């Protein structure tokens, strides 16, 4: 099995060619094509149920592809077993499971260890460094169920670091966490940029997408727009992606009314000034 390091001539990258996928007859992803160059950082935005999570699940091999092809390092999906890491949404994890913070981060090394090899010093060093980097070294021996939401997210970010991924996928890392965790996540993105790790982040925060990412992918089952924030966040693109949730305000650009919370505790996220002229 080929294990390419990011330094080899062929750049680390991700290509999708007309990929369709979905659980039911309704396609969650409909013929989506795009390319992410080596080390780029992409914000994936779109309304709820636009297929953002589906896209990530396809990329980690959790969901079969109905049509089309995915290439990583120019090879079909599955040729690399250890180069894609995924930071799940917090609701996807059983927090009552009896594992410690250190245990969870060590799971990030399993891909390198295979089924049977015991952790060696290099694994332990990676775990320690990752814990340190996310500022949770002091929590290493705590049960994950005892942590706050932000701390739990940092555990999964540390695990993703320990995986030494070439491509890192983060599903809504900015939703429902405290400001210091948001900050830690953003500084992690900086760090990953210097390591040339390719990153895709799904988010509801269009302002953050516009300000902190060099590329934005606007998704609503189909690919609506992909490129620099200034080119993507144009009223016609936003209207196409968010349809009913999109309001044009005279003279002030536009507002996307996007739900980021479970129904019931709905609040409105106003992302003013997302017109191309502002971003």
């Amino acid at each position: 099995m080929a294990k390419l390091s990011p330094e080899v001539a062929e750049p680390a990258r991700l290509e999708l060619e007309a990929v369709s996928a979905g659980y039911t007859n309704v396609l969650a992803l409909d013929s989506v094509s795009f390319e992410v160059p080596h080390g780029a950082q992409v914000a994936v935005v779109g309304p709820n149920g636009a297929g953002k999570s589906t896209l990530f699940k396809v990329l980690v091999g959790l969901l079969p592809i109905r049509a089309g092809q995915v290439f990583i390092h120019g090879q079909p999906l599955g040729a690399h077993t250890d180069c894609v890491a995924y930071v799940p949404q917090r609701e996807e994890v059983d927090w009552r499971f009896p594992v410690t913070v250190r245990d969870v981060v060590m799971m990030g090394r399993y891909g390198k260890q295979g089924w049977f090899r015991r952790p060696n010093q290099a694994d332990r060093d990676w775990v320690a460094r990752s814990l340190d980097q996310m500022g949770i070294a002091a929590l290493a021996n705590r049960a994950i169920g005892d942590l706050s939401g932000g701390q739990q997210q940092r555990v999964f970010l540390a695990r993703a670091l320990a995986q030494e991924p070439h491509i890192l996928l983060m599903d809504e890392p900015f939703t429902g966490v405290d400001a210091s965790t948001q900050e830690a996540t953003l500084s992690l993105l900086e760090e990953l940029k210097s390591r040339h790790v390719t990153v895709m982040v799904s988010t509801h925060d269009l302002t953050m997408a516009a300000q902190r990412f060099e590329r934005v992918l606007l998704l609503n089952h189909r690919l609506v727009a992909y490129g620099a924030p200034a080119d993507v966040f144009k009223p016609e693109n936003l209207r196409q992606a968010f349809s009913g949730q999109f309001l044009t305000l005279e003279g002030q650009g536009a507002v996307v009314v996007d739900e980021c919370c479970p129904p019931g505790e709905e609040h409105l996220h106003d992302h003013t000034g997302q017109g191309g002229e502002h971003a």
Partner: protein
Amino acid sequence: MLEWLLEPWSFAFMQHGLLAALLVGILCAVIGCYVVLRSMAFLGDALAHAILPGVAVAYLLQGNLTVGALVAAVAVAIGIGFFSREGTVKEDTAIGILFSAALSLGVALISSIRTSASDLTHILFGNVLGVSSGDLLFTALMAVGILGLVMLLYRPFLVISFDPVLAATLRLPGQFLRYLMLILLALTVVVSMQTVGVGLGAALLVTPAATAYLLTRRLARMMAISAVVGAVSSLIGMYLSYYTIIAPGAAIVLVATGFFLLAFAWKRVRG
């Protein structure tokens, strides 16, 4: 006092019974950790009851009852996996259907057998005092084999239980591992049939593991504590049964339940 403690073990049937009960207690307790963590308590109970038709058919054909139980348990385990594959039917629904179907089939077969069928009573409630050397050897081999696999596959089993998404990222064969876990559970239930019978099989799977879950937050430690609870329950249960008239299977389960209540109270008091 020493005499009181040693007296039961002067009988060969008590020695065999104790060894079998200890092996089964430890085996069920360790597998039971996954049963508790993966919310498979209902499944464990279902498997225990589902082996009834296999045993009844084996009895009718005058074959080996254990082999009959084994075939039925594995068939039901695979059946549950098959019906709930890709969410066609929810897993607990599939379990409910297959479990009651198998149990009905077992009852139908048993009611058609016109003997006093004391063997079948033993299957329902266990017969730990009638363990032969052959039975003991079988129990020991199964226990060592199953526990060996659980230890060898500790890491993949942990990952598919805790984080199926990571398991997929690591390209672990999730489907295969889930089936394997079901089959190991089925085998465990069959092995425990002799000690506590199909009626109480689920208790040995769930109670020690649930006790350990209250006391620790690490899986390896939970397995160790659960095994100790299972073994000690078996030991005390055998004494209880020897010095009273309580059936051994019931005594063991009652002792384990006592440990669970103690752990529960301790957890509550500590907050």
